[in-house]
């Protein structure tokens, strides 16, 4: 289906106006920056309502099939919505796991029944999804997952625990990677993948208090929890392949997500904006040459990251180590963020010592983002592990 430029321009105008009018505005409390940080009921309700409103207006899942609740339109419309949402900085779509990972997976690999059962609830936020991949003792080593699933009649009995389950307490379903066998040719062959109903006896998501003193993750315990055998996705022993397909969606390597903003993008321009309105010792912070220099260093570094992205699109300029830029993305982005948050606090003088409260600069957002920034320098392979991977896989250096 081809769409005219004119039609798109008009659509953008329309979306933009709708967002301006329907932006739910300041809730009077500090909102989370992403679904991983939703820590209170009031935050959750606010965000769920907002997602539903966006869906009801027809601005979410626009490219998903109409028969399951999607919009059946070309992807480009959804992209325009996402861009406008980012531009206007409206709150994000909180059912992130459903919209971006579980949903596309079900559409790709699920049965007709699955699609009818799950898709609409993902879009209208009736059914919140969470993810059960990581485990307490081997966070980065997914293939080594130890949560057990034992077939028993029409059920699987699940035992063990998963960690870092965002929205665990609100979720209706979990995408769960569990071990159905300890035999087989490799540890990967013993894994299976489930769409597990969370409201099941023996499934107990326990909120984890984060270093920010907020909640936003759970450790989910499974004690002889019985989930229906037909909640399996793919066949027994194929869990690793399904999980890898999920990660392809998670990492944005393939399309198919429902779209919409999935987190608040905090970047160096926000820091610059903060710097512009900051005073140190009563004087505009940006009059201080040292602060100017640090600000410029961050702007350069952010620009480097953008330009590296642009260069990856030109194969002739990536002949030697074609994966270097892509593989270092998390490392570069997460460390930059951690450091620019430290800088943002340093702009605040004595107020750098505040925390989430009305008196704090921007409500304490910067202190909180700094603390939360460790989730990216630690989660999904720590920065130190990323350095190893870069050294070994990209530069070919010997293993540590």
């Amino acid at each position, binding site marked *: 289906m081809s769409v005219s430029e004119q039609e798109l321009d008009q659509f953008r105008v329309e979306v933009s106006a709708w967002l301006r009018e329907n932006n739910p505005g300041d809730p009077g409390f500090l909102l989370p920056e992403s679904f991983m940080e939703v820590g209170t009921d009031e935050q959750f309700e606010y965000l769920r309502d907002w997602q539903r409103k966006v869906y009801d207006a027809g601005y979410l899942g626009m490219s998903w099939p109409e028969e399951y609740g999607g919009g059946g339109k070309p992807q480009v419309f959804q992209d325009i919505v996402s861009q406008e949402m980012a531009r206007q900085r409206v709150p994000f779509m909180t059912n992130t796991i459903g919209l971006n990972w579980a949903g596309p997976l079900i559409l790709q690999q699920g049965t007709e029944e699955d699609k009818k059962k799950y898709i609409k609830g993902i879009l209208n936020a009736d059914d919140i999804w969470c993810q059960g991949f*990581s485990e*307490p003792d081997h*966070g980065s080593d997914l293939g080594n997952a130890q949560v057990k699933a034992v077939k028993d009649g029409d059920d699987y009995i699940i035992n063990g625990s998963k*960690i*870092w389950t965002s929205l665990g307490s609100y979720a209706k379903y979990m995408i769960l990677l569990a071990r159905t066998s300890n035999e087989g040719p490799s540890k990967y062959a013993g894994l299976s993948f489930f769409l597990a109903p969370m409201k099941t006896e023996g499934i107990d998501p326990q909120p*984890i*208090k*984060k*270093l*920010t*003193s907020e909640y936003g993750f759970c450790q989910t315990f499974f004690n002889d929890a019985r989930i229906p055998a037909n909640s399996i996705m793919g066949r027994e022993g194929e869990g690793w392949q399904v999980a890898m397909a999920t990660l392809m969606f998670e990492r944005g390597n393939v399309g198919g997500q429902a779209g919409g903003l999935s987190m608040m993008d905090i970047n160096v321009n926000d820091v610059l904006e903060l710097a512009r309105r900051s*005073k*140190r*010792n*009563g004087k505009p912070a940006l009059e*201080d040459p*040292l*602060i100017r220099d640090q600000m410029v260093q961050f702007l350069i570094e952010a620009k480097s990251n953008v330009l590296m992205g642009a260069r990856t699109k030109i194969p002739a300029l990536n002949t030697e180590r074609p994966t270097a830029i892509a593989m270092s993305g998390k490392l570069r982005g997460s460390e930059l963020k*951690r450091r620019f948050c*430290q800088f943002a*606090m*340093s702009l*605040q*003088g*004595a*107020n*750098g*010592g*505040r*925390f*989430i*409260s009305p*008196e*704090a600069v921007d409500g*304490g957002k910067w*202190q909180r983002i700094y*603390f939360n920034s*460790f*989730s990216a*320098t*630690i*989660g999904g392979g*720590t*920065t*130190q592990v990323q*350095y*190893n991977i870069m050294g070994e896989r990209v530069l070919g250096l010997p293993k*540590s």
Partner: protein
Amino acid sequence: MNSQISFTEEQSMLLDTAMDFCSKNSPINLVRSRTEEAQSLPSDLWLSIVELGWTGIAVPESHGGLGLSVADLVPVVEAMGRNLMASPLVWSAISANTLQLAGSEAQKSAWLSKIANGAIATMALIEPDGSWQLSEPLCNGTMKENTISLSGTKCFVQDAAFAEIVLVSILLENQPRLVLLERSAIPEHALQREVVIDETRRCYRLTLDGITVTPDQVLPETCFVEIEQTAMLLLSAEIAGGHASTLNLIVEYLKTRKQFDQYIGSYQALKHPTVDVLLGLEATRSHLYHAATVYDTGTPLEKETSLRMLKAVASEGFAFAGDRAIQFHGGFGFTYECDAQLFLRRAIFCQHQFGDETHQRAYLADTLIDN
């Protein structure tokens, strides 16, 4: 350049006593539960501190104190910092020192012996703009018929709800001055608890509007330089202690936690930055005891230089240590349950009080380069 460090047998004994007392009375589980209480420290523990004589260390003998220097509190405050013990001690001591330097005889007689005996005193210096320029308050005092009406807002007033006096900096007839507010002069609604990143601390916002004082509550002199210096010294002592415990926390985890079948401390990527945390600590403690030495014996320039260097080195080092402590604890480090956050929060708070490293270096440039 003066590079002296002197540390007497008495100071050494005081350090041992304080280390012992604080580790016994501020185990980490109590540090955590105390963050939930109204006061930073239980009253009986404060009494023990008073009995140990620490509240009188820097009060003259004529007012019932030990007649030592504020710098003699350094070992005590370092020990407290090590155990994340929060207490009104530091600000009571700075207040006493301020009274001693700038107060009238009547003010000294009225309060110094009380402070030595455990009355809590504190100071209201910082304002909502977060400026570190102590001698440039925006809060105002207007004199009319022998009454001074105060206006404006102070913040980060530590332990104010429990203090018997608060020394407040204001602008009076365009001059920065200090006034002594007694508890009775502060209406209840004027104090509001503030949320600060270091949960062991109790900070309050003090709204001055509507509060009046009489001229005899104004301190006859000011001593903003000394207040800042004392604050930098004692805050850095607290930092040094916190830094030391952060290092221990990291080392302990690196020795016991395994990943990929190896103790994580065997990885150079963790080991070498931990050595940097150690080197930062050694630098901070060296600056600390040098500054404490110079505090009483050095020239004004030496005092100024050593204290600003100390605060710069200490702030930067502890913030780095706290940051790495979170990172090196991995997923556990991301939880409230891990003690690393307690230290990082303390580090960030202390870094941003009385000038961070950039601020201090800008001043040092003027003294070290232009002289």
